[in-house]
């Protein structure tokens, strides 16, 4: 496990700015005056934010805890180029006005060098115009944030958990390659997330020669009989659900009642609490041919995730002792913080905001946490576009072979 941790810590920078020789957290900082705020010879200030109160707290608090423990670990190893990372933490309440206020406070009042935060896509998108104008590098925490990533801008980087577009594409890829599905029933939401994941699902299905039958449902739906009967009439080989947990519960229940035996895949959008899902569906028989998508590199308690769990338990023993902790989203905070520390490292001893943003636009690294590489490109600001799949029988999760990488590419 030490190897895994060290690999993640050192960044394993696969590509980066040309000519940089990979050296982990060098100790000699630059000296003198700096053109951008938030940086001194000894410190560099990062603004970290997430929903830390209200109904969305569960989405943001633990990823923020994970990011914080990563920054603290880097500090304990001497910081970056000898500079300790100083965190200024804000609550964005998962609300556009509050998130913009938090970002403006961090940038204009606390004078941070760059910002890292946001667990809610709609709120995160609200900050786009401001950060672009202020030219402050912004790395999202665990918001997919597709709305701010396509078309790409120079300062915003997100989808560190996974982009919504990759959610749909990789689920169809798994359904066609692993489960050999040719006819796929696809139930998504009639919102932005649903539209985004359907776009790549259709792309991947076409590539694989598969046919999709799509039912787009409202997230607040209370009766799923009609859409599910339509899907059944299509006689699919596999059903993919990209819904949230509550509609997924209704669908699984109804599919079981209707005797639908084909494999059902639930994407990461609805897998926050699998135990609760089983309790709500009411019978484990509904999970006999059931798969879940995940975006980390192993089962949550698997060997590749052990270093993350150990680090969390050590840093937050009281939280770790609470039920349902860490939350499934916790690990996503680490690669978000790694994106920041790796970019700072590669930017050299005298980093500028402009330089860090430029580095990030071509940054690729292995996080040791997520299913695929964290990778940005000329037209790609979505960090993570891979997923794994687990067979879940209502009790145990069994890792399925392979990592599924989205092949959809944004074309300007």
């Amino acid at each position, binding site marked *: 496990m030490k190897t895994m941790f060290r690999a993640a810590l050192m960044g394993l920078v696969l590509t980066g700015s040309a000519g940089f020789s990979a050296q982990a957290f060098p100790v000699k900082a630059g000296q003198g005056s700096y053109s951008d705020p938030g940086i001194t010879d000894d410190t560099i200030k990062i603004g970290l934010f997430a929903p*830390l109160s209200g109904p969305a707290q569960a989405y943001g608090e633990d990823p923020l805890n994970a990011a914080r423990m990563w920054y603290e670990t880097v500090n304990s190893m001497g910081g970056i180029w000898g500079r300790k990372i100083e965190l200024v933490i804000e*609550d964005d309440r998962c609300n*556009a006005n509050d998130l913009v206020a938090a970002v403006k406070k961090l940038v204009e009042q606390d004078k941070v060098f760059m910002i890292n935060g946001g667990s809610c896509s*709609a*709120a995160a*998108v*609200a900050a786009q115009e401001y950060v672009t104008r202020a030219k402050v590098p912004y790395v999202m925490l665990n918001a997919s944030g597709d*709305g701010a990533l396509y078309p790409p801008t120079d300062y915003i980087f997100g989808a560190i958990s996974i982009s919504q577009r990759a959610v749909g594409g990789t689920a169809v890829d798994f359904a066609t390659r692993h489960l050999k599905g040719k006819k796929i029933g696809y139930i998504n939401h009639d919102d932005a997330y649903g539209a985004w994941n359907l776009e790549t699902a259709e792309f991947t299905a076409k590539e694989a020669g598969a046919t999709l039958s799509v039912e787009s449902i409202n997230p607040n739906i209370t009766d799923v009989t009609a859409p599910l009967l339509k899907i059944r009439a299509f006689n699919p080989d596999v059903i993919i659900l990209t819904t949230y947990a509550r509609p997924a519960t209704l669908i699984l229940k109804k599919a079981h009642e209707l005797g639908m035996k084909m494999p059902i895949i639930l994407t990461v959008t609805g897998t926050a609490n699998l135990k609760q899902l089983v309790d709500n569906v009411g019978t484990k028989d509904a999970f006999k041919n059931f798969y879940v998508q995940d975006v980390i590199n192993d089962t949550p308690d698997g060997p590749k995730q052990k270093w993350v769990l150990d680090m969390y338990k050590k840093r937050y023993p009281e939280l770790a002792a609470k039920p349902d902790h860490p939350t499934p989203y916790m690990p996503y905070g680490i690669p978000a913080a790694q994106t920041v520390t790796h970019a700072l490292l590669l930017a050299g001893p005298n980093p500028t905001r402009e330089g860090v943003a430029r580095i990030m636009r071509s940054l690729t690294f292995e996080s040791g946490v997520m299913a695929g590489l964290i990778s940005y490109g000329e037209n790609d600001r979505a960090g993570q576009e891979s997923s794994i799949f687990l067979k879940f029988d209502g009790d145990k999760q069994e890792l399925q072979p392979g990592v599924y990488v989205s092949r959809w590419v944004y074309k300007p």
Partner: protein
Amino acid sequence: MPITLPAKLGSLAVALIALIVLPHLTTGYVVYLANLMLIYIILALGLNILIGETGQFGLAHVAFYGIGIYTTAILAGRFDVPFPVAIVAGMLLAGAIGFLLGAVSFRMRDIYLALSTFAFGEAMQWVFKSWDDVTNGPNGMRIPQASMFGFRITNDHDAYYIVLAVTIVVVLATVALMRSRLGRAFRAVRESEPAALALGVNVRLTKVIAFTLSAVYAGLAGGVYASFSSFIHPDSLGFTTTILVLTMIVVGGLGSIAGAIMGALILGLIQELLRQAPSYQEIIYGVILILFMMYAPKGVAGAIKARFGRSAAK
């Protein structure tokens, strides 16, 4: 001890000077908050006309605010309509829909009116979320950079004096309105509809006007918000925001212009300050509201009036 007229004028002058110099003394973050609070003041004044002055428990205020924002953003962004014209259009559209809502719901009162207007607010949020071609649906909508009278608004500082000027005009207009015959008719309807009828007040028309004016204020607030904000998402236009504005006028003091202003400022500030205490903010917020209700049941304006005399918090 009553507050004298010179003392009142002196306080107003100090407040005005403070507001004018504010952007020169502080960061863009504080100016952004100031802009938001000025918007809250316009919203609170509008809701106060309906609930505080006329006694009509309407809960659709944020829907009209949303209509103002979207109309301004769409007209300015897609049709290149000058921003001031777009703001006026948003205000008028909100007013027209407010008129219709008032016309169909004038017979309702109390909880029935609250529920029907709440339903309208929810329906409008659904429209904002679902009418993809017009509002861009759940993706939210980007608002173009505003330009007014040849002056381009590129940041919060640029917008501040425009938002401040609009707010001052709205406050003065509201004072004039409340001192007018119509203002007295609003209060007569609030106190007793049969008595108002006996005094020759057209109760039905008065209620519809209150609905319309309240919606016009909310539409104006939305349009002005669009001048300094770059993005709107339907999630911001839900019941939480309605409750926030309602709390502002209750904490400030129902039926008082000064109360609506103070409520908007107090709640706006508390909301922002509590972001610094995420673990306890819901509890602290709840305790503050309980304390207000216990020790200032008639709102801040009522408490000031009781302490300093009648003229202090009008």
